[in-house]
């Protein structure tokens, strides 16, 4: 059952081949059998899941079910879930039982989906390897000596190993797309403002966006459809109807113009990745897409811009963790200042502390203009590059997602800058606010690779259409890591 697509699972539920309770139990059993080694879940909510499954079975019997009714899902542990611990990969929130649901949790519950549990992640979503989690690293199901990518490492590992059919994830600089590429999954970060951020623990508010990791573009489209939409509780939510992401999946892509930014194809990616990407371009050409070299001249500035903007916003967002209202509190502090300092010194791990300090520094008096304001200006230049490309008739932009296949644990652990360079291809989409996705394009020495599609604002339907057409012509996304296939 764990190898079925969402449409197949929905058909199986309707055809009474299995109930939602049986389906849920199947996944809970697989989690029990496999997750000890993978560490993708930090909290398993079996009782809540079975209750939801029974409710879904009742809806199915009554004929009131939607397509997602009764289908299990894993939730990244960055989304608040009422009555369930929401730890965000941090000791700071190790005891935090959220008093309310994130909007996307509400929406997916309302769609009838069954939450299996909460998924491991880099602490406060800061990392590219899932090694910064307070709950320990997540292993890549394709090779357990390698990282699954990050920050949504738990989300991708559980879906890649068949411990959930699909999972939610978030992406501030590539945290959906890079891990999807390293685990043979399809991951989509929609346009900024398309999915509500209410109840999603904030990292960098002008960059954060929620999305999905799935085993196909079609599965991703179904779940993203249910997550999207205006939410009055999020002040940056976009008041605009949600496009139909599913009906257009089968549209031909003949005549589509895809831009290949020459800056993204300069040195940087491994020879193996380059070969797979070139093959993907050839496949899309056969399907009728036209390719054109374009230039996004400011894209090499994405990583430095991001490492000013994101830490600045993080230092401000994470100021709320003070040991007073919720979260970790140091024992025996004698003064309020000591309480703040020790609670935060004990509660945050090293990567979070580094980013808080960088953010504090670039926002501090005397450095604000040189760093923060300058980064905001360069951000505009990066954004303008994309605007120009789309105005010149480019429908989508194609690039690598990651420079190489998954790396080994500990590879970059003492060198933050080397770790940050993992995200050179993904960060620009967050800075510009445009939608982007990664999809599988083959293997290098048995390890998965992916390529990235970026679109204009609200081009999710077109992107998913191209991804689906590509997946009709290829079978990379159907491959499983041997250990988890049966």
């Amino acid at each position, binding site marked *: 059952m764990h190898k079925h697509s969402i449409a197949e699972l929905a058909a199986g539920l309707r055809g009474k081949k299995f109930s939602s309770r049986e389906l849920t139990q199947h996944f809970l059993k697989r989690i029990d059998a496999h997750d000890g080694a993978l560490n993708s879940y930090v909290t398993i909510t079996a009782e809540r899941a079975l209750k939801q499954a029974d409710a879904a079975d009742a809806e199915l019997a009554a004929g009131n079910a939607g397509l997602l009714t009764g289908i299990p899902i894993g939730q990244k542990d960055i989304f608040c879930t009422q009555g369930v611990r929401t730890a965000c990969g941090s000791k700071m929130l190790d005891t935090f039982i959220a008093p309310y649901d994130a909007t996307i949790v509400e929406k997916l519950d309302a769609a009838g989906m069954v939450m299996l549990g909460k998924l491991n992640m880099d602490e406060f979503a800061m990392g590219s390897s899932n090694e910064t989690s307070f709950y320990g690293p997540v292993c890549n199901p394709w090779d357990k000596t390698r990282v699954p990518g990050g920050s949504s490492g738990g989300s991708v590992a559980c879906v890649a190993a068949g411990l959930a059919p699909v999972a939610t994830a978030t992406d501030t600089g590539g945290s959906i797309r890079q891990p999807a590429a390293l685990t043979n999954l399809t991951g989509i970060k929609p346009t900024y403002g398309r999915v509500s951020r209410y109840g999603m623990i904030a990292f960098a508010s*002008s960059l954060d966006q929620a999305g999905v990791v799935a085993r196909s573009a079609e599965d991703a489209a179904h779940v993203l459809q249910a997550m999207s939409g205006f939410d009055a509780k999020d002040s*940056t939510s976009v008041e605009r109807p949600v496009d139909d992401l599913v009906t257009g999946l089968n549209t031909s892509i003949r005549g589509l113009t895809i831009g290949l930014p020459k800056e993204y194809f300069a040195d940087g990616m491994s020879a193996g990745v380059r070969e797979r990407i070139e093959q993907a371009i050839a496949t899309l050409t056969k399907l009728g897409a036209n390719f054109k070299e374009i230039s996004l001249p400011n894209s090499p500035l994405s990583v430095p811009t991001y490492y000013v903007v994101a830490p600045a916003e993080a230092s401000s967002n994470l100021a709320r963790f003070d040991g007073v209202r919720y979260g970790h509190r140091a024992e025996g502090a004698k003064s309020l200042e000591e*309480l703040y300092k020790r609670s935060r010194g*004990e509660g945050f791990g090293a990567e979070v502390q*580094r980013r*808080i300090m960088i953010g504090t*520094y670039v926002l501090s008096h005397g450095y604000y203009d040189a760093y923060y304001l300058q980064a905001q200006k360069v951000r505009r230049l990066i954004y303008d590059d994309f605007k120009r490309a789309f105005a010149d008739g480019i429908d989508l932009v194609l690039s690598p997602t990651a420079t190489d296949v998954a790396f080994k644990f500990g590879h970059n652990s003492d060198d933050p800058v080397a770790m940050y360079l993992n995200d050179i291809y993904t960060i620009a989409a967050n800075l510009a606010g445009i939608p982007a996705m990664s999809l599988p394009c083959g293997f290098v020495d048995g390890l998965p690779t992916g390529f990235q599609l970026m679109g204009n604002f609200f081009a999710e339907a077109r992107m998913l259409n191209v991804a689906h057409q590509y997946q009709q012509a290829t079978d990379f996304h159907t491959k499983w890591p041997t250990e988890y296939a049966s």
Partner: protein
Amino acid sequence: MSLSPEQIRQVAQLARLQLNPEQVEPYARQLSNILEMVDRLSSVDTANVSPMAHPLDMVQRLRPDTISETDRRDDYQAIAPETQDGLYLVPKVIE
């Protein structure tokens, strides 16, 4: 741009982070490396560029000033480390 251990201690104080003495030197080295990477921005000509705080051209939505939430003080205090009589407790601030 490189940061000295003394500057790290100052920034940590501003951010209300208690560091162990042995953390200071590695942080100084790592943060200096990050700032060195970021310094590339200083050479970009941004003379006529307006700063971009946010990807969407939008104005702050306003709503009528009416009560829309129910009182859930007890729920919120249930997850607090220390409360008394509906108040959050902190170490003594005024002698």
